[in-house]
């Protein structure tokens, strides 16, 4: 692991007059180096997206598009049994929308990261992963993909020659095999313990699994889930710890 790492979070998950919990976007934006902007299908309306772009610009944060399933009620967390072709169109549609709003602010998209159930679908479903990579090579050549390491999308991207940014999940537990223990509701975590875990992962390339094993991890970006309880405190602790250790925070 080099002495530089990216810190990403999902941003702009409001919709109309609704916002999530404490809505710490403005504070988070000061700490992260890349932001995944909800693109309207599971959260984020056009004015929310634009507000997030302006905020990202002010803080010099790289902006990525965060496409999800078309499911506002379910917040993109429920799988929808759509064909690979339909889903690729959904992704391109959302990418185009955020890219247009970004261009108006003089910003170019830095990356694409799928959201929620669509992220998991691309990690598992090889036909979708391959069709998506093929489409992105045409529609957005050179756009990096934030992926789950060792996933269908990572493999398809590598085969297609698309740059992959692998993530480390600061606020999730790891299994012995290096996979993430996915939970519906994340408990309130100790920010300092998360910071310890992140620093160890960055400097030694290992993480302690839930059953106490040392598991090797390779990644270029740290993902902080903005809806984890106490997300802001976690982000502050991680930022403080990495900076103190001389690790430079910068987008990939």
């Amino acid at each position, binding site marked *: 692991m080099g002495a530089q790492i990216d810190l990403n979070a999902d941003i702009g998950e*409001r*919709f*109309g*007059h*609704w*916002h*999530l919990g404490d809505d710490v976007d403005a504070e988070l934006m000061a700490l992260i180096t890349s932001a995944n902007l909800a693109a309207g299908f599971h*959260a984020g*309306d056009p004015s929310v997206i634009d507000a997030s772009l302006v905020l990202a610009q002010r803080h010099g944060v790289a902006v990525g598009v965060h496409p999800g399933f078309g499911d*506002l*009620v*379910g*917040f993109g*967390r429920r799988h929808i049994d759509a064909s690979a072709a339909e889903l690729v169109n959904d992704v391109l549609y959302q990418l185009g929308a955020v890219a247009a709003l970004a261009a108006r602010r003089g910003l170019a998209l830095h990356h694409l990261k799928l959201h929620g159930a669509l992220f998991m679908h691309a990690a598992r479903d090889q036909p979708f992963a391959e069709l998506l990579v093929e489409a992105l090579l045409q529609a957005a050549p050179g756009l990096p993909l934030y992926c789950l390491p060792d996933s269908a999308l990572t493999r398809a991207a590598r085969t297609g020659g698309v740059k992959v940014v692998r993530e480390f999940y600061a606020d999730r537990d790891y299994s012995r095999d290096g996979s993430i223990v996915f939970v519906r509701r994340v408990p309130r975590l100790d920010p300092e313990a998360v910071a310890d875990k992140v620093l160890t992962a960055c400097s030694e390339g290992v993480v302690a699994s839930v059953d106490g094993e040392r598991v090797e991890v390779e990644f270029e970006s740290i993902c902080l889930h903005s809806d984890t309880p106490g997300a802001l405190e976690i982000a502050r602790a991680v930022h403080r710890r990495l900076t103190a250790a001389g690790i430079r925070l910068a987008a990939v």
Partner: protein
Amino acid sequence: MARLLLNCDMGESFGNWRIADEAPAMALVDQANLACGFHAGDFSVMAQSVRLAVEHGVSIGAHPGYPDLQGFGRRAMEMRIDEVTDLLLYQIGALDAFCRANGTQVDYVKPHGALYHAIYQRAEMLDAALRACRLYREGLPLMTLAVADRAPVLAAAEAAGVPVLFEAFADRAYLADGRLSPRSRADAVHKDPERIVAQALAIARGEAFDDIDGQPMQLAADTLCVHGDNPQSRAVLARLRAALEAQ
């Protein structure tokens, strides 16, 4: 004369986005106006809100709005008059299905936001709303703003064969004609609990209170719209309830 009732807009969460816990306010109101999915409230929120209202013995009203989640139904939309009737029927029917599943029914219809305002501002919109109520069920009342001159509303309602519930506001300043003062004016919303309770009691007793220009005005109403989405508004709500019950 019946006590002035208290009604509150509720069921305004949507999916992952949650509005504050509504149970405390539900314990204090007589009527719950439940969002029907178009401007707020998804199917699960509707089901939960109906159950909560039934548990507290609160009368349920449909609170239909324009199909505008993003704008929370607060933006005026251009719509044909026949579409407005269909828009209302659709949402009343949807909420009533949840009511029936819980052994109750929609007791009245109170349109939401920009649609609410259009109904007391334009006669053809009032007619469209009255038509929806009459088509849905005989005797289903429409809740609308208690304006100073009720005669045109009552005439239209009588022609349509629909009962009307007139609604007043204790925390809003009024213009002389009984319309709500626009929120763009700094003094449009009363913040002082004393003033809110005093205005409520004046309306309950049929006495005069000050309009936004300090002139005396009188409004007759059947129900008072209240808010209960934060501790401050709930404290005022509890005081209002006690004051009205002491009448």
